[in-house]
């Protein structure tokens, strides 16, 4: 079990783009302040994707938090001028040693996963109509679940899990532009700004892991396809209604190297991982990115069997990159073993 991870993320996805597009759509209709059903439907979908993506980003442990910088332009001509801070505390772990599964030559052990996360983002809009307006979004998420890890060989295992994620998102809008000051009530009515939404997400995945040992070094290969089903159960506006399917697929190679030297009775270890995460469905639409790469390095002290349930305590840092995006994160690296 690994915890905590902390970072800030500022790849402002669709947040401003949706609002800017909506308001741009309103512009020619301003006299009547009307919007076509097609536009309303598109906006609802886009807002739903956005809330779904941010809820998963803020509440699910599997998606990394970091400090990102976008180098590209988003749809609707929006440029990046935003920051989102994501703080997470959570992890996953297998409990105890594998036990025989009945008379089968398969070992199993219970697995638990959980996470608490908060996302706090601010974006200044740069579009002719809404220049200087500020939109802020906050998301809190808590998830918990579990499953079992099944060992089919001494090296190969797979762990199907089911988790539940509760998310609460809210958006507030500061209208500085003349256009938006005149149309703020209409935008609220459409659910484009100043909304709140409570969501639940069911998360299922299978963590497939292959462990190799070379001398004292441990090399782990893992693949984790995840499916997310998100729905709203309460919102401040009927237009903010999320019902979507998402997916992610992360593939990781992790190396854990004991260095053979001790500090204060604890052996120094080093290591790191490379991870590729693909986004699918609404998650891809909400982030407007199809994948993310992460390379992580760490230095830690071995506490296994020396401090209750702690495997190591150290520090780690990551560099992340993807289409039109780069980023980094750093923080405490603590791993528990139960």
């Amino acid at each position, binding site marked *: 079990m690994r915890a905590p991870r902390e970072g800030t993320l500022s790849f402002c996805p669709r947040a401003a783009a949706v609002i800017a597009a909506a308001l741009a759509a309103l512009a020619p209709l301003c006299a009547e302040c009307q919007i076509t059903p097609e536009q309303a439907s598109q906006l609802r979908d886009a807002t739903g994707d956005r809330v779904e993506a941010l809820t998963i980003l803020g509440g699910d442990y599997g998606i990394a938090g970091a400090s990102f910088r976008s180098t590209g332009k988003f749809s609707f001509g929006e440029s990046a001028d935003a920051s989102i801070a994501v703080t997470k505390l959570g992890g996953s772990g297998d409990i105890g*040693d*594998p*036990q*025989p599964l009945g008379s*089968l*030559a*398969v*070992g199993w052990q219970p697995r638990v996963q959980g996470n608490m996360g908060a996302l706090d983002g601010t974006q200044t809009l740069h579009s002719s109509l809404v220049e200087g307006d500020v939109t802020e979004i906050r998301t809190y998420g808590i998830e918990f679940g579990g499953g079992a890890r099944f*060992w*089919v*060989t*001494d090296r*190969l295992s*797979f762990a199907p899990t089911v988790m539940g994620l509760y998310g609460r998102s809210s958006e507030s809008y500061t209208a500085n532009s003349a256009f938006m000051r005149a149309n703020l009530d209409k935008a609220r009515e459409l659910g484009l700004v100043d909304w709140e939404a409570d969501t639940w997400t069911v998360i299922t995945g*299978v963590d*497939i892991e292959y462990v190799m*040992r070379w*001398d*004292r*070094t*441990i090399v782990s290969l893992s*693949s984790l*396809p995840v*499916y997310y089903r998100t729905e709203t159960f309460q919102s401040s506006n009927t237009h903010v209604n999320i019902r979507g*399917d998402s*997916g992610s*697929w992360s593939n990781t190679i992790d190396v*854990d190297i*004991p260095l*053979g030297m*001790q500090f204060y*009775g604890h*052996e120094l270890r080093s290591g790191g991982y490379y991870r590729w995460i693909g986004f699918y469905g609404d998650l891809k639409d909400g982030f407007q990115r199809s994948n993310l790469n992460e390379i992580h390095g760490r230095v830690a002290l*071995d506490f*296994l*069997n*020396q401090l209750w349930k702690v*495997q190591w305590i150290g520090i780690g840092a990551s560099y992340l990159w993807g289409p039109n995006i780069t980023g980094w994160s750093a923080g405490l690296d603590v791993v528990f073993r139960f």
Partner: protein
Amino acid sequence: MIVAARARVCSRCPLFVWVLTPVLMLAGCWTAPVATVQPQGEPRLIQGAVALEPVKTLAVVSAVDVSSGTIALRTEGSADIATYKVGPEVSGLNDLKPGDVVQATLVQALDVYLLRDGQLPGAVGALAVDARVLRVDPSYRLLKLQYPDGRTDTFKVALGTRLEQMAPGDSVVIRPVAVLAMRRKS
């Protein structure tokens, strides 16, 4: 209805199928660790006096010998009594009497053998084996032992221990070394 639902899931998540199929095909190769197996190799002393990280445990005082600076303890969960050298940092030895319960920080060492039929070639009689190796983790220097009554204990061994030569089934003699700290429990 069920067939249609399955088809829909598979078409949406083909990765599950592709990844799980080879995994399931490999099923059936896992075996639970067993301490009673006969390890491979020539009978020998693999390593003697393997240093362990000190362990903190409850123990019952059996005897105290102030003049020689030793104390006999029966540790929690064990039927055997072992005699330890009392370290210079331990005080209050005069106040202890048999039957007292103490929280003790103990230093122990292991002799790890590969035996054939419980014996070393050339040795007289059988070794008094305390436990057998159940699992070896060279990376984190962990040795999991199983006692004759089925209990298990995991020890962290010192750097330089020849864990790569140890395997499940090896025989272990636990040697009491010293008491580093001790506090009487009420």
